[in-house]
């Protein structure tokens, strides 16, 4: 039994001029960046003026889009087919630089310098767990405000959890806006108000405790920083709210990216629920690296049984001495018949890869080079491979069905697994093609 989720149609989504922002989110290692880049290439070649904002792309993927260094501004991607009137720009986020720019824009030069030099600011801008998420949102807001592109595709930071993307900006916002910061600022301000003396006592007890732990000079750094940033806090909060509303707008489409693995889909499931709770528009689920088979009607069990039959046949023939010259030795073609994929770990076989080329069949490899493995061995190998593939297909289907049962309304685009990583425009085009098909192709 299989749940049939509605198919997520990628082409209409990319072609619709009302689609202005696409956000790709999901847990680490599921192919978010590749998906974002592939969507960008496809959108541009279908006539959109698109920009891809990536956070932390793999080196070769970045190179494929001409991104050789972080410079925090969108650059035009060469090699895109622009005959449909579109073009593609891409940029990598430099979070520290984005933060610095905000400071420079919103404070007078002397004050900006004081902030930039503050050790606490330096730590916050480079390392705070939410800074990257916040700055990605900030940059998205900036790109949208420039209105130079009609489609912005955002890749989200590689957080420990997909939810961080939504949580972190609020956390930074509430920190900068929070009670604690107000209290740190309080001594200076409260001194002017007699009625606040009580608060002051609590405050000094608390800062006392805190400076014991972190050291007084750190606390001083924080206080100086907070005082310098004071005028900007309103701005931070306002911009975070504006970006938040932008994400809720109808021109935005969230794509949750996952692979058909238990953990990735569990994260995806949380995220789908969360988007619904926050009124964020979900377009659907992109399921990467889905395996299929062109011979899906041949079951695992039947393929294994046939492979064993062939290997027995071979064994019998070899024992009879027929055509022995072109065959594996008899004892080597005997397979355990417990139904398991009884091939040894490649470790033993791959220790010296240089030895491989003359061995037709890797497992049970003979000492003598066999240039032409017999058809029976090849066929048995093909069947065992197929059995392995069908096991993967079945496992992926189970995980996927579980998701579909919980979220029957979420449209899904399945992207057939590629045998190797993508790191050029052609590869991205192929991913885009598979995305648009929405269902894994035969192989």
């Amino acid at each position, binding site marked *: 039994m299989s749940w049939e989720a509605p198919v997520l149609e990628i082409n209409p989504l990319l072609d619709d001029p009302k689609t202005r922002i696409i956000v790709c989110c999901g847990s680490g290692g599921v192919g978010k960046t590749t998906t974002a880049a592939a969507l960008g290439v496809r959108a541009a070649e279908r006539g959109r003026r698109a920009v891809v904002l990536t956070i932390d792309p793999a080196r070769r993927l970045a190179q494929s889009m001409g991104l050789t260094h972080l410079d925090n501004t969108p650059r035009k991607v060469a090699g895109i087919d622009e005959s449909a009137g579109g073009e593609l720009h891409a940029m990598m986020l430099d979070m520290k630089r984005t933060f610095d720019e905000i400071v420079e824009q919103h404070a007078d030069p002397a004050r900006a310098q004081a902030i930039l030099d503050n050790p606490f600011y330096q730590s916050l801008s480079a390392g705070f767990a939410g800074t990257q998420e916040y700055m990605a949102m900030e940059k998205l807001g900036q790109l949208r405000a420039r209105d130079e592109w009609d489609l912005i595709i955002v890749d989200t930071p590689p957080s420990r959890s997909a939810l961080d993307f939504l949580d972190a900006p609020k956390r930074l916002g509430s*920190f900068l806006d929070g009670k604690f910061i107000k209290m740190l600022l309080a001594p200076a301000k409260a001194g002017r108000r007699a009625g606040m003396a009580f608060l002051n006592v*609590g405050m000094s007890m608390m800062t006392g405790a805190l400076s014991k732990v972190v050291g007084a000079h750190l606390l001083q750094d924080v206080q100086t920083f907070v005082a310098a940033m004071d005028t900007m806090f309103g701005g931070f909060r306002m911009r975070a709210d504006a970006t938040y509303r932008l994400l809720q707008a109808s021109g935005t489409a969230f794509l949750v990216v996952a692979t058909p693995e238990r953990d990735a889909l569990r994260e995806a499931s949380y995220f789908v629920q969360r988007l619904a709770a926050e009124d964020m528009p979900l377009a659907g689920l992109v399921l990467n690296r889905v395996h299929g088979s062109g011979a899906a009607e041949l079951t695992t069990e039947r393929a294994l049984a046939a492979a064993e039959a062939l290997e027995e046949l071979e064994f019998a023939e070899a024992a009879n001495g027929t055509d022995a010259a072109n065959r594996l030795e008899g004892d080597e073609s005997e397979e355990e018949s417990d139904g398991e994929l009884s091939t040894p770990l490649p470790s033993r076989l791959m220790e010296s890869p240089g030895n491989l080329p003359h061995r037709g069949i890797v497992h049970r490899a003979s000492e003598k080079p066999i240039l032409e493995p017999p058809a029976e061995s090849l066929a048995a190998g093909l069947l065992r491979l197929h059995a392995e593939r069908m096991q993967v297909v079945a496992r992926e289907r189970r995980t996927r069905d579980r998701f579909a049962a919980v979220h029957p309304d979420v449209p899904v685009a399945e992207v057939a697994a590629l045998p190797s990583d993508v790191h050029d425009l052609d590869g991205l085009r192929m991913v885009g093609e598979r995305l648009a098909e929405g269902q894994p192709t*035969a192989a």
Partner: protein
Amino acid sequence: MSAQERADREPTTAGPAARLHIVTGKGGTGKTTVAASLALALAGEGRRTLLVEVEGRQGIAQLFEVEPLPYEERKIAVAPGGGEVYALAIDPELALLDYLDMFYKLGRAGRALKKIGAIDFATTVAPGLRDVLLTGKVCEAVRRKDNAGWRAYDAVVMDAPPTGRIARFLNVNDEVAGLARFGPIYNQAQAVMRVLKSSETAVHLVTLLEEMPVQETVDGVAELRAAGLPVGAVLINMLRSVVLDDMAVASAGDGNRRAAIAKALSQAGLGGARRGGYAERLVDPLLEQAREHAERVVLERQERAEIAALALPTYELELLGDGVDLGGLYRLAESLRKQGFAREDTR
């Protein structure tokens, strides 16, 4: 001789064996699974290990099929041979309150700090501080001894942040340097660094035989080495078996062998070998799968060479076809033991 004494005995050659195993890896490589298998593998022969997670994901609880872990060490598994695996999910906020209580007897003031958001501030906003607390708690468990002077744990395994952040996470000294140049946090960072950089510690990297994870592993090793942190082993996870290699596949794809393969399939009871017969129709899709497989085999060979160039001890964990469950964990642990992981440790 008890297991405890065995564990405490200093080896005569080489340095003391690692007792703190830090497991990192790119997202999606199965870091948590490998860390859990290691903790099980190291718990052989009546030894006791502690498995720690620091990112608040409750991945350990899910893996061992138990209720979410509280901030307290509790036994979650028994290893073959009577060893025990304890687990701990470190919550940075509680760790800070712990720390305050231990050193400053803050009690109620600590709770007041929490109420106004100071604890939240200190642990989430000052990243160095947060990391010192997490690693500090782990180092404390490594060094802890009971009243009789025996170690609380023979080994501690940490499910650490991903490769991209690991050097920074562990190099707490540098991280807090800008924030605290002296004072208690600074001293704590110094103490943590001494443990992390000692031969008691080994940072292991989990990878798959795929391009991006291997690239991150290579970069991660360079970063760790540059930071003076002791690199342990590379663990290749989710290894798939090689059924046919590229030469065999090339041979099978040869036009005049197709008929022979169709005939063989037919012999195995899979329908007719003639044009349009079931066996004949199977040849193309099966060959296509074989070509993908061969492409992967070639790629994996390259990745393997990259890993070999790191000249680090390497261990391999097979892909569990039906996903990782509790039984799978024990199988992986057994495999690690057979490959000598735990042995190296008891040297």
